[in-house]
Every structure is written in C-alpha cells, then in structure tokens.
C-alpha cells in the first residue's frame, strides 16, 4: 500500500469514532403476515420455506425471533446458519431492505428503525455498504459505471467519482477491466466488482450477504484471502452472513449461530467449536472438530516419524 491510501485509511478508521458499539440490535422480530385477500409475493420473502408455510394457509410466520446482538467497531462478525434460519432477513433488516416488525437497530449511534424515508436514503448512501450473493450488478453499465453507481446516487462529483472508482478497482485487482460489461466477467470477477462498489463508498460498516457462496472453491478461497488482507488495511466493521463454517472460521473475529430465526450461540469461533451450546451447533461444528482431531493425529504421527528418522541417522 502506498502512502496516500494509508492516510485515507487513517481518516476513515472507525474504531475511534464512538465508544459505543458499531451495530446494536435489540429484540428484533420479523413476522410475515398474510394480508387479507392478497397472496404474499415471494419477492418480499427471501426464504422459500416461509413462503411455503404461508401458502399452506398459516396466517403468519416468524422469520426472526427476538434477536439481540452487539457488534464492535473494527470486528468481522459472522452470522451463520442453514438456509431458512433467518440470516438473510437479519442482514436486510439492518438496511431496512426488509422492514423489521419490532425491535431496535442502532448503527453508529443512530436509530435506524426510527428513520424516515429521507434519513434512511442518506444513511444507506453514507454509513453502510452491502455486497450481495447474486452480485446485483447493473447489466447495462460497464464495470466502472457499476462501481461509481453508489457515488452517483448520492451526487458526488463526476471527476472524484472516477478517481475513487479506479482506486477501488485497483484494490480488488480489476485494473484494466473498467470498460467491460458484467456479462463478460466470471462469477469471481463480478463479485470483485461488487466488493469494489462497496469499498468505494468509504462507509465504516460493510454488510456481506453470502458473498462467496456462489463461487467455486478455489476462487472462493482467493477472495476470502483478499478480503482478509483488505480488512487488515481498512479496519472496517464487517457483518458477514454465511452458511459455510470454514469461511466463518477463516474470516470471523466473532460469530453468532442462528436457527429458525433465533440466535442460539454467540462467541469466538474457537469458543463455538470447543463448547457448542446445543446439539444443532454441535452438528454444525462436528466436521471441524473431526478435522482438528485428525490434524492432531497427523501432527503426532509426523513428530513420531521425524523422531524415528532422527534415530536412524
């Protein structure tokens, strides 16, 4: 990293911003109800299982029950859970892409749930940026135009827009691709554009909704590494949703595990693996425990082998 970028980072470093938590979620609920005479459109609900339940004639389904979380400045917080556990609903509530039924969300000291339309638009433009599983790129805009999109929405100057976007594309390793259209890019590269679009906003908080789930394992790993590297430099607060435990372990400082709309355990990855709170979590981390046990065995065997070799020589 060169000097000017370092300065940028220092200026944007959110750790010192306030003493309070970056994100505070209190007693958050989301209940989908059937309106009289209206079918629930599946576009409102991310979760197919919930839609099915509503279709079956249930009057209401609970997508999120009494969720309370505190996310500190500068940490990467992972939300883990199987599909249908409400993690997508939760991350969308933070931006009010999904309206929570009750509860409070306080981000950067501001009560998001109490904002009016105007305040909400400004909040989304300044304070928070999101990366999506399905990228959500504009097919009729070039890579560069996609990255500048958020800046354009909030009315930044054209010149500074381009400059920031080029810088951001450079960070995600897409220099030279700015004139291409999304259709010409592979999945991994499209998500790089998605990340560049989020970084360029210079928001202290980053929301990532299963950003690497659709990518093949090698590319996924590559992007995870780059994200970890970027995070070291940027020191943002990252709210990261995934269903992949190994991803959670690599990326996360702390994690919460969700099951059927409820948080069942919060802790550091090590804590969660060592002391699963219930059987659901235990099953989740079973493979990882297995791996660790095997790794220990291999290590022990390796040591024994080396010792043996040493004896021979």
């Amino acid at each position: 990293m060169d000097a000017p970028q370092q300065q940028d980072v220092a200026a944007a470093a959110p750790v010192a911003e306030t003493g309070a938590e970056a994100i505070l979620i209190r007693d958050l609920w989301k209940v989908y109800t059937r309106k009289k005479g209206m079918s629930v459109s599946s576009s409102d609900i991310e979760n197919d299982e919930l839609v099915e339940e509503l279709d079956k004639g249930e009057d209401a389904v609970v997508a999120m029950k009494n969720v309370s979380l505190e996310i500190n400045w500068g940490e990467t917080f992972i939300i883990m859970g199987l599909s249908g556990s409400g993690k997508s609903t939760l991350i969308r509530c933070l931006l009010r892409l999904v309206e929570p039924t009750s509860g409070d969300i306080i981000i950067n000291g501001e009560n998001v749930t109490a904002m009016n339309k105007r305040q909400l638009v400004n909040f989304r433009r300044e304070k928070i940026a999101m990366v999506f599983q399905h990228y959500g790129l504009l097919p009729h805009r070039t890579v560069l135009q996609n990255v500048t999109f958020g800046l354009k929405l909030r009315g930044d100057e054209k010149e500074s827009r381009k400059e920031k976007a080029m810088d951001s594309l450079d960070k995600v390793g897409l220099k030279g691709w700015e004139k291409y259209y999304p259709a010409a890019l592979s999945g991994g590269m499209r998500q790089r554009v998605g990340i560049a679009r989020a970084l360029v906003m210079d928001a202290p908080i980053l929301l990532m909704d299963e950003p690497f789930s659709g990518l093949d394992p090698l590319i996924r790993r590559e992007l995870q590494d780059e994200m970890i590297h970027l995070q070291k430099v940027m020191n943002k607060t990252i709210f990261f949703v995934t269903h992949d435990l190994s991803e959670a372990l690599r990326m996360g400082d702390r994690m919460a595990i969700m099951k059927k709309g409820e948080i069942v355990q919060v802790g550091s990855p090590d804590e969660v693996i060592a002391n699963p709170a219930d059987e659901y979590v235990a099953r989740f981390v079973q493979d990882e425990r297995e791996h660790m046990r095997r790794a220990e065995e291999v290590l022990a065997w390796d040591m024994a082998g080396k010792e043996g070799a040493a004896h021979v020589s």
Partner: protein
Amino acid sequence: MFPEFLQYHVAGAVNRFIDDLIASYASVFDSISDGILSFLLGVNSVLTFIPWWAYIIAVFLLSWYSSKKLIGSVVLAALPFLIGMFGLWAMALESLSVIITAVLLALAIGLPLGVLMAELRPVAAILRPILDGMQTMPSFVYLIPAMMLFGLGKVPAVLATLIYALPPVIRLTALGLNQVPKAVEEAALAYGATRWQLLKEVRLPLAMPSILAGVNQTTMMALAMVVISSMIGARGLGQEVLLSINRIDVGRGFEAGMSVVFLAIVIDRLTQNMAKRWEPPKR
C-alpha cells in the same frame, strides 16, 4: 327464432346520448379535432416535402447503421421504391402520416400509463381489464365511437388507430419494468437509490428492450388499423384496397395490398433493429 316480443333496442337511446354529448361538448370535440388535424397536416406536409429518394437512402442508412447487413439493407430500401413504382407514393405518405400521428399520441399516453401500471397496484388492477377488453374487441368496432364523435375523415381514423394501437405499449412497458431482476433493484436500494432514481437509473434502462418491443407492436397495429379506417373515409393505402374490393379489381388490390405489406416490413425492421441496440451488452 328468437321471440320477437323479447327484443329491445338501445340504439335510439345511444343515438340520443351521443347527440346530447355532441351538442353539449361540441367545442371540446372541435378543439380536439382541430388539434389533431393540424398536427396531422403538419406531419403530412413534412413527409411530402421530403423527396422520394431521400426516403430510400434513409431506409438504407438506418438499416445499415443498426444491422450492418448489406443485402438486407438493400432489399429493405428497395421496398419503398416498389411502392412508388405502383404509383401509390402519395397514398403511402398519407397512411404514414396517420400512423405517425397515432403512434406519437399512443406513446405519449401509453408510456406514462405503463410506468404507472408497474408502480401502482391499483392502477394495474383498473387498467388490466380495460386493456383486455380493448384487445379482444374486433378492430372494426373502434370505428363506431370515433365516427360518432368526430364524423368522417382523418381525425376519427387517427383516434380509432390510437385506441386500437394503445394496449401493447402500455402492457409491454409495465411488463418490462416488472421483469427487472429483484437482485439488481435490491442492490440499487441498498446504495441509497430513491424511488425516482431506481426508476430512472435501473428499471427503465433494463426495461428498454421490452418497451421498444411495445413501440414496435403499437406501430404494427396502427398500420393494420389505418387500412381498416379507410372505411370511415381516411385517404391512403387502405382506400385503394377498399376501392379495389368494391370494384373486384384484383390487380389493383394486389398492388395496394403489397404496398401495405412493404410499408409494414420497413417499419417493423427499422424499429426492431432499434430495440436490439438497447439490449444489455453480452461482452
């Protein structure tokens, strides 16, 4: 046979209603009529002012520019030449001016209605059955209200054409807007797009291929209707067709009919090529 004592006619009542309507709103209908007529004459005088060879060159260049196919463009440019050869150039221009007027009016009404239909549920709920009705109605029927209110001639022809050609552009505009992927809309909202920005920056550009397909459909329907509206006295290619039917003059009918087809092909090709240019790039 249907029993005679059960017969009941509303024709008299309708006639009285229309008479009253015309009597009390004569000035309104007159001004609408005058407005459309002067616009129509303006379009027609511009069309006749342009020399015939300019059309042929323009068709060739537009086609070449949008499709880059040489033979196709030459064939397309030859079609208006054939219309001229049949001696129907002036007639074709008169039909074209009715089409242009009706289509411009249809777009001015249809595009905003399509946007409203996609944005507001109640509007869609009201418009959809009306559009269904408009599209299932036989095209001849549109001549009746147009004729009742505006008499004979070009103005009722424009209005009948307008009503007949309106549904596709409304429908396809709304359809295109509703088909924008939810993931893209969500991303735009997450970055702080207002409703207006979402429409202008994301939904309308992504709906453009569908909207232009609607424009193409509307133009094609206008062309069909212009032929039919010769029955209420609109001059043009349709009149030639009608005359040759009445006189059982097959040869003359063939020339006029082919001219209509040529006109349709040229307009269809040109508007379709325009629509293709708006599709999101593949590379």
